[in-house]
């Protein structure tokens, strides 16, 4: 730990931003579902894990990383649709804790489902051939896959932003998050919108898993820590805020990455302490509106 060169710092920073990009995707999915359905998806980490498994599996099966990136969100989104329709929907109007409890139970089932299909050891993941090695950015070499991860997440987030802010469907989602009653009165089938939003949220979680798979160990338990980390990001950023999710995601990613460079023992702890500090200073989160926490 004696020499921390600018090069090392730069690489660690890129790793932090790449990690933060994944966090941002996770937090956006959580926020989207919460903003619309008032449901905290405790199976979000499990969907991330399923996405990672399916991504590695699809890559091995088809040999095409791009194809796997297309397939995974479709698959996890589909699981999400089934879950909303048959498990979450009966619980609306029964208090906010019930969907949360249900998705917690679901996460247990998803963990064992992956153990059943792919074994308890998990799958060996590798970086796709085209994205291996390092890329020269003019001021230094950086791991290509991390750079790709950042670009890919930026594209997904950009597309989501356009979808939510600029399209008719996005308008319905935003209106539904503010007042589902009025949206229903205007003749829109809110139940269908909720279904699709849950599916969209789980699709993004799965995609985040598939994108992150080459950078971490793919095993059935990987979603368990990811869930806690995505809660940290959501609380830091402020629930229901898209810019909040992105900024907090990057912040948490960078904090984690830099602490693991300077004080490796404190890396996991650092992001939770960051959250505690944000709670003390600004309980609604960096971008949340005051009073929204209730």
């Amino acid at each position: 730990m004696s020499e921390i060169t600018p090069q090392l710092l730069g690489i660690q920073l890129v790793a932090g931003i790449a990690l933060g990009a994944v966090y941002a995707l996770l937090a956006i999915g959580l926020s989207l579902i919460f903003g619309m359905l008032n449901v905290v998806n405790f199976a979000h980490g499990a969907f991330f894990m399923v996405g990672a498994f399916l991504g590695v599996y699809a890559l091995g099966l088809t040999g095409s990383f791009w194809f796997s990136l297309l397939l995974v969100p479709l698959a996890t989104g589909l699981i999400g649709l089934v879950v909303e329709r048959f498990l979450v929907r009966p619980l609306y109007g029964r208090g906010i804790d019930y969907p949360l409890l249900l998705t917690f139970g679901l996460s247990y089932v998803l963990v064992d489902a992956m153990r059943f299909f792919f074994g308890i050891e998990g799958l060996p993941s590798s970086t796709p051939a085209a994205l291996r090695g390092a890329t020269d950015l003019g001021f230094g070499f950086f791991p290509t896959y991390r750079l790709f991860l950042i670009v890919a997440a930026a594209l997904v987030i950009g597309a989501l932003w356009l979808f939510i802010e600029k399209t008719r469907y996005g308008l319905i989602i935003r209106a539904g998050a503010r007042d589902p009653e009025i949206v229903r009165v205007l003749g829109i089938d809110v139940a269908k919108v909720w279904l699709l939003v849950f599916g969209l949220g789980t699709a993004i979680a799965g995609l985040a898993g598939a994108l992150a798979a080459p950078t971490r160990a793919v095993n059935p338990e990987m979603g368990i820590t990811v869930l806690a980390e995505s809660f940290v990001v959501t609380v830091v950023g402020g629930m229901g805020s898209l810019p909040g999710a992105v900024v907090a995601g990057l912040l948490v990613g960078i904090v984690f990455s830099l602490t693991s460079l300077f004080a490796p023992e404190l890396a996991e702890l650092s992001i939770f302490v960051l959250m505690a500090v944000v709670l003390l200073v600004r309980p609604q989160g960096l971008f949340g509106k005051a009073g929204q926490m209730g």
Partner: protein
Amino acid sequence: MSESTLIEQARGSAGALAAVLRFTARHRVGMVLAFLLVMPLLLPYEALAVNILIFGLYAVGFNLLFGYTGLLSFGHAAFLGIGSYLAGIAIVSFGLPWWAAIPIGVLAATVAGVLIGLLAIRTRGIYFSMVTLALGQIVYYAFYKAERWTGGENGLRGVRVEKIDLLGWQLDFVDPVTKYYVVLVFVAAALWFVSRVLASPFGAVIEAVRENETRAAACGFDVARTKLLAFTLSAAVCGLAGTLRALHLSIVPIDSLHYLQSGQAVMMCLLGGMGTFFGPFVGAAVFLYLEDVVTHLTAYWMAAVGTVFMVFVLFFPRGIWGSTLAWLERIAARGERA
């Protein structure tokens, strides 16, 4: 037999049922203890009984917050774990006797309850669950990394209590039956305490907060202070469960601080019946017995418990004991009306 005698009989038995229900409610601590006294005789082996006793107490502590105050914490493993670790460290690193280790563990869990509670009650509703989960993970990682004191990943080993000396009366703590009844003494004290809290004016206020926070505040109750006090008491009870668990297992696994351990309290509480006095023990017993049976049959224990839990959330949100009570009360009420 004429119709009127039949009705008379039905009314009589329903009245008796109602009387039994009232009696059980009034003497809830005694009734639970009567059950716990004979429980080891009903189970295949005594170690399971000790586990049910300890996790039942853990779920009782959690239920004080979740069932009665209406706050769903996902961070209560922190208090179970801190109770275990601090009692364990007192014995292993400082060579203190077991009876001194218990108050140390409970006190540490109570202090942690105040600190985590202060932060967590700044948030409401669904955020409360997320924030308590994340704050609980702080404790998990802190103990994980403090390897010198806690043993890190391997857990804290060597919390050995073999003999309990009671004014010259030697008790063999290795014997599971003796152990069970020693632990039961502490559980009984805690149950009496929780029952007193629930029967006090404060107990009425926490239920008022659960039913309608705004109205409770409008009635002049300090909601934030009520929540913090309920959180702290709940943490103390879970801490006691933790200290007893450390003595029982003679090691403290690091998993006892993980949020999945908090989830276990949630599951037990809901399976048994949240907001009921006996429910947490029923939940703990069913959960642990199921675990025992299922892990012998299949490796997919998590899928089984997850499915059972989802079925209860969807169809039996009152839990086993809560549904049974509601059913008996309905019969009694119907009979009295007839």
